[in-house]
């Protein structure tokens, strides 16, 4: 087990790798009562086509990863994992995104017993024809709930606009139709390939004793009985740089139109930048162009061009997207302003330094919170396959010359627009 210091803030991070490839990260907090643990696999809704554990090419119905996540909570032993954890007042949940599925627990009691059970249940699949069938009704209601939400509709439609082949173009949960196709064999194919410890991470933080947990994890029978898969083969997609559709409109229950404006950016455009640098510099640019202190924000507010305006950055495989969401009854003018703002980007030194200061402050605050710290470590692992414990130093090292070089490589011309308009008009 190795140890490193977190941002020089009297906070330690311990880590080790099991023989079967599971990578484990432990963050002991000195003054907390609670703990939070995530066990996750690099398997999400986009992992549709792959070679299964017998080397056979398989294709799963859309929504399989999310369906599988639901079904992990049904165990052959008859024990309900939620019930098990709640006996000691511990909560559990799970979530599926495009590129990962995570199972997480949080609470204050019986950490060893609960971590041990987390490993037990996630490594004990039990899929039958009848329990798969039963889940379809529940997931159908879940999908219908999301379909009523205009923000989800913007998300789902935009990804369909942006991507030709990358399966992120499909909904995470699939559709009411596609989930009907899911059979237990689909779940086992995916499970036996992607729920291998070599494709997974375990991150635990909070009120923990690292030596005890290390021993528990290294001696966990079920976990350590699983053999490492040397290589997982996913289908590779030749995704073009441009967007598939530039525009789409939808009609829903909204009063004020909602828009999503996105640009698709290829990571390989930035040859001299590491993945984390790409994300950080792009973050600086977005803050400075669209943040609360930007000229753009002041202008659109004063002209009443929008309410509820926000910007996000997303990573999809080797692509990044900048996603702008807004409510606006003057959408045409707003979009022109956004497009104008994305041209001839110039960042002032003072703005650059101020954003760095804000980021450093938020790193210090983050370490007060067990959940956030654990979440960030896990997100780093999924995105970078590594943990950046020296974030504050990295922020300080960001350099305006390098930023200008980055801006030269930045191509924001692959744009798409989705509008949600009122149904009745």
């Amino acid at each position, binding site marked *: 087990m190795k140890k490193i210091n977190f941002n020089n803030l009297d906070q330690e991070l311990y880590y080790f790798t099991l023989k079967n490839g599971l990578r484990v990260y432990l963050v002991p907090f000195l003054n907390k009562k609670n703990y939070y643990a995530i066990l996750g696999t690099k398997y999400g809704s986009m992992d549709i086509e792959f070679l299964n554990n017998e080397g056979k090419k398989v294709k799963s119905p859309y929504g399989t990863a999310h369906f599988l996540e639901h079904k992990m909570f049904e165990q052959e032993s008859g024990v309900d994992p939620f019930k098990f954890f709640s006996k000691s007042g511990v909560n559990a949940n799970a979530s599926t995104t495009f590129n990962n599925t995570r199972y997480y627990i949080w609470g204050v009691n019986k950490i060893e017993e609960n971590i041990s059970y987390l490993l037990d249940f996630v490594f004990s699949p039990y899929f039958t024809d009848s329990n798969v069938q039963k889940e379809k009704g529940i997931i159908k209601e879940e999908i219908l709930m999301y379909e009523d939400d205009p923000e989800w509709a913007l998300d789902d439609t935009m990804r369909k606009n942006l991507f030709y082949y990358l399966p992120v173009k499909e909904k995470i949960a699939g559709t009411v139709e596609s989930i009907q196709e899911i059979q237990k064999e689909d779940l086992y194919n995916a499970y036996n390939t992607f729920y291998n410890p070599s494709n997974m991470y375990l991150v635990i933080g909070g009120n923990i004793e690292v030596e005890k947990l290390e021993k528990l994890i290294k001696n966990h029978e079920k976990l350590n009985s699983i053999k490492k898969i040397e290589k997982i083969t996913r289908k590779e997609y030749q995704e073009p740089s441009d967007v598939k559709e530039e525009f789409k409109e939808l009609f829903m229950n909204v009063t004020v139109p909602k828009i999503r404006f996105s640009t698709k950016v290829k990571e390989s455009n930035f040859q001299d930048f590491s993945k984390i640098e790409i994300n950080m510099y792009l973050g600086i640019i977005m803050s400075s162009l669209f943040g609360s202190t930007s000229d753009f924000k002041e202008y659109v507010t004063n002209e009443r061009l929008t309410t509820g305006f926000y910007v996000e950055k997303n990573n999809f495989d080797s692509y990044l997207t900048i996603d702008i969401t807004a409510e606006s009854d003057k959408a045409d003018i707003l979009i022109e302003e956004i497009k104008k703002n994305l041209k001839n980007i110039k960042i002032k030194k003072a703005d650059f330094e101020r954003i760095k200061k804000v980021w450093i*402050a938020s790193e210090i605050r983050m370490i007060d919170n067990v959940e956030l710290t654990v979440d960030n470590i896990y997100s780093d692992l999924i995105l970078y396959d590594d943990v950046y414990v020296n974030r504050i130093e990295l922020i300080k090292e960001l350099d305006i010359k390098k930023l200008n070089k980055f801006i030269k490589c930045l191509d924001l011309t692959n744009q798409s627009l989705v509008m949600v308009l009122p149904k009745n008009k």
Partner: protein
Amino acid sequence: MNYKCIDLKYGKLHLIQTKKFRSINIKILLKEEIKKEDITKRNFLTDYLILTTKKYKTKKELALKIQELYSLYVSSYNTRVGSYLITRFNLSLLNPKYTEDSMLEESISLLHEIIFNPNVKNNQFDTKIFNILKHDILTEIETVKENPKLYSMVKMLENMDSSMPYAYHGYGYLEDLEQINEKNLYAYYKEFLTRSLVDIYVIGDFEEEKMISLIKEKLNFKTLKKEKKNIYITHNKINKKIKKVIEDSTFNQSKLAIGCKIKDLTDFERKYVINLYSMILGGGFNSKFMQIIREKKSLAYYINSSVNKADNLLLIQSGISYQNFEKVISNIQKIMKSIQKGDIKELDLEDVKTEYLSILEETYDNIDSIVENYIAADLLDLDDYETRKEMVKKVNINDIIQVSKKVQIDTIFLLKGDTNEKD
């Protein structure tokens, strides 16, 4: 942790000393009895104050100042608790240990600027900013219909009794918004500052003397102390026959909102038993609602219950398919009756007690939840942390059964989904 309450001329200062966190948080609560016609004005006012001040005229200028102070968190919002309307101003700063010594005073000065030094000229608020904000608030009120979960709950409460504070729209009213102008809002501001009861909470690692003198200097409210009114709402009547209302919509999924009235709780029941009862009923994955209606019958993805103590209401929410409406209702009623008849296991009660205690302990890991605990205890006259830990253990099955008989379904509202929905 060390708690101290100091009497100020205008209210109370609550100091909570702890070395557990890297930030210092300050919360100011201004409360008075709620009046329906005040809600929209108050929302407008608190938004205005945090958007512009005399010194920092535009949102951008204020945002720049906030970032210069190592990214302060500043917010304001209004909530209703029972018969009170409560306005909060929140400030969170990094402990000056990690930044610069002057940051404490500068941050509190900014809070002073926001509350006491609004952007006013000729006895009225700034017209340009006023109009921008009015447009935002108008949009906010109009878009409530887009949120079927919230909308169905609001409609259910209105159908229960539209004259009661629990039926008031927290987001405000269009007809009230029309009446507000730059002049009368400023007049309302001056009134508001003098008639609210004030509580200030400070938590973190700080020098007590310095903090007290800064607060006295910078946050000098002029309110005269007033009598506390009863915050709890009680019900005069409960519908004998359940009121059922169905409204059409074009959403895919139907949204169900059920309001149950709670009557005549003892002090012990109010503080402890009702929470545990709601947890057993619909508090999470292991609740009876989720186990039976979701897991056994596949009728819903979510169904939960929650208690609103100050309103004496228990609220149930779910998203369902319209054709399952009657089935879901009869299952809910069956489950509630079965508890009244004693169908509840010792183990279920033990589980929710453990969960309750666990949640209670966890609140002490989060700076905000610690303060919220103190605030809730003060507002609702609840016990302190240590007492709660001991008392909740005393709840037994019979207590749950007795409480379950004091909870009655009064109103059911269904926002009906499009019946052409997919199967």
